[in-house]
């Protein structure tokens, strides 16, 4: 006698297996074709090291900026009732679905040398943002911040506000309550938002190449380096891809780690 539920329909099983295979095969190919022997030498090359360093530095800065302004944005969206709140909420999610290259064009039109705001800055100071390392940070922040805002806002809205009332009744103002009660209790969600934001910033390609260009050592991040290396040095491209894969896996593990799942409220 078979115990438990009946087997799933074979048609669904076959299609599901196909989908899984489709997702796994490219990653498998990457591992199979990786130049394991020459990997240390490839990763040691100055151009690769530059791209890796630039990527990490810009992604860390972008994530920090996104956290410093994104958490307050999430708080306002979740806690302050103002006209146009649902519109603001929709606008925040727009960069999530917008093709990144469109984001890059939009950033150029806003902050470029002849952009709406960038033009004014250029006229006054003679300085223009695009095609600088700062532009990489701006592009990454633009694309990655919504991940953080949405994660934190969702957590804030699901948060038991009686804890905030308890803090207020003990004499703590809203800022103190946010700092000493809400954010510590939402630490797992906050961490998830930060990690997602960092991963998205690290992988950013379209907005970066459009807005910041592709100058080695200055604006050429890992994804750009991978794309360019594919033409003249495919082995290096594979090596770089492996590094990004490892980082992504690390992010996934972090997100699934028990530490992030631990629910402080129960």
């Amino acid at each position, binding site marked *: 006698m078979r115990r438990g539920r009946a087997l799933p329909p074979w048609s669904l099983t076959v299609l599901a297996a196909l989908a899984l295979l489709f997702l796994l095969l490219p990653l498998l190919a990457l591992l199979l074709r990786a130049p394991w022997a020459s990997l240390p030498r490839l990763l040691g090359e100055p151009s690769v090291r530059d791209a890796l360093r630039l990527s990490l530095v810009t992604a860390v800065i972008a994530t920090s900026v996104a956290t410093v302004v994104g958490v307050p944005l999430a708080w306002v969206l979740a806690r302050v009732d103002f006209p146009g709140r649902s519109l603001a909420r929709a606008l925040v999610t727009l960069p999530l679905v917008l093709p990144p290259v469109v984001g890059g064009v939009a950033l150029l039109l806003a902050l470029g040398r002849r952009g709406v705001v960038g033009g004014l800055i250029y006229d006054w100071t003679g300085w223009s943002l695009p095609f600088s390392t700062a532009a990489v940070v701006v592009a990454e922040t633009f694309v990655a911040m919504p991940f953080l805002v949405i994660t934190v806002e969702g957590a804030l809205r699901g948060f038991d506000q*009686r804890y905030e*009332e308890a*803090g*207020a*009744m*003990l004499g703590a103002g809203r800022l103190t309550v946010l700092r000493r009660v809400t954010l510590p209790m939402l630490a797992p969600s906050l961490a998830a938002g930060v990690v997602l934001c960092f991963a998205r910033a690290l992988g950013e390609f379209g907005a970066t190449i459009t807005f910041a260009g592709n100058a080695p050592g200055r604006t050429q991040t890992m994804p750009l380096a991978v794309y360019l290396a594919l033409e003249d040095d495919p082995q290096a491209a594979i090596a770089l891809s492996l590094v990004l894969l490892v980082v992504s896996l690390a992010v996934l593990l972090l997100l699934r780690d028990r530490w992030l799942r631990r629910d*402080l409220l129960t």
Partner: protein
Amino acid sequence: MTGGALAAQLQVERGSLSLHVDLAASAGEVVVLLGPNGAGKSTALRALAGLTALTAGRIALGDQVLDDVEAGVFVPPERRPVGLVHQDPLLFPHLTVRDNVAFGVRARGADRAASRRVAAEWLERLRLDHLAAVRPAALSGGQAQQVALTRALAAGPQLLLLDEPLAALDASTRAVLRTELREHLTTYGGPSVLVTHDPLDALVLADRLVVVEAGRVVQAGPPGDVARRPHTDFVARLVGLNLYRGTRAPDGAVALDGGGVLRAAGTSSATGPVLVALRPGAVALHASHPEGSPRNVWRGTVTGIELVGDRVRVAIDGAPSVLADVTAAAVADLGLQPGLGVWISVKANDLEVYRSAPPPP
């Protein structure tokens, strides 16, 4: 800490809720708001805390005005010298017991070291110092609620609000904490307002009982008076009394609105609309018309029998209907069962007759 008496006129209109409650509590006095669920008790408490906006009215603590709709005064919750203990302890899970208790002290301006010292003193005073380093997740329900009370007291409130503070606890913890709470409220020294729907909490903890039904005060007074002479069916049910409305004639006979006549002892000057309260234990049941002196004798039909403690509560349909508490032996002797006709007798001395005066303001 004392900051003077509480004087509040609370009016909140929100959706289907309409609350009009005036409250006064002097320093050291425990006022208990008692009422059924949804009566507006918790809303009244939230309004005192500043968590719910008043539609109209005023809240003053001594000479500080916390809320005055007409004058446009509203002190936000974090600047009110008011402590709130909720049904759930709501301890901050990421802080130790000591840091939870220190939270309010620190929020009101003390530095970390000073606030921890104050917290340690309070924990010792409430005999909880052995829990100082523990996190809330490791506390029992009763301990957590004690810590919540300590946390509220340590912040030095001039008004203490307690919203069903014992409701989430099991019966034995509840009995212990009820006694302790009484002690702490006495030593606290400021006015306290406690909300409950449990009559035992109300009778043990209250200096003055305010009964709220459907957003209005229906009765207020010392708990003993309220328990002896309930004004509404809700209170009568809570304290386990039969309550009848009627009109008293000069000869002392009360013609009940629901049918039947009850005669109380003596002749009273009180005529007109009155209430009559009757303890179920004072009701006697008989198989045939009783001999002797009882002034009130009538016939009824048993509709329900239920064991309550070591007594049996018998519901009887008649004019008037009545709840009677009798012994198990009496149930057996009389062969009581639903549908059986019985004779009911009540001595005139056992009836409490009083005016259904409107509640004092």
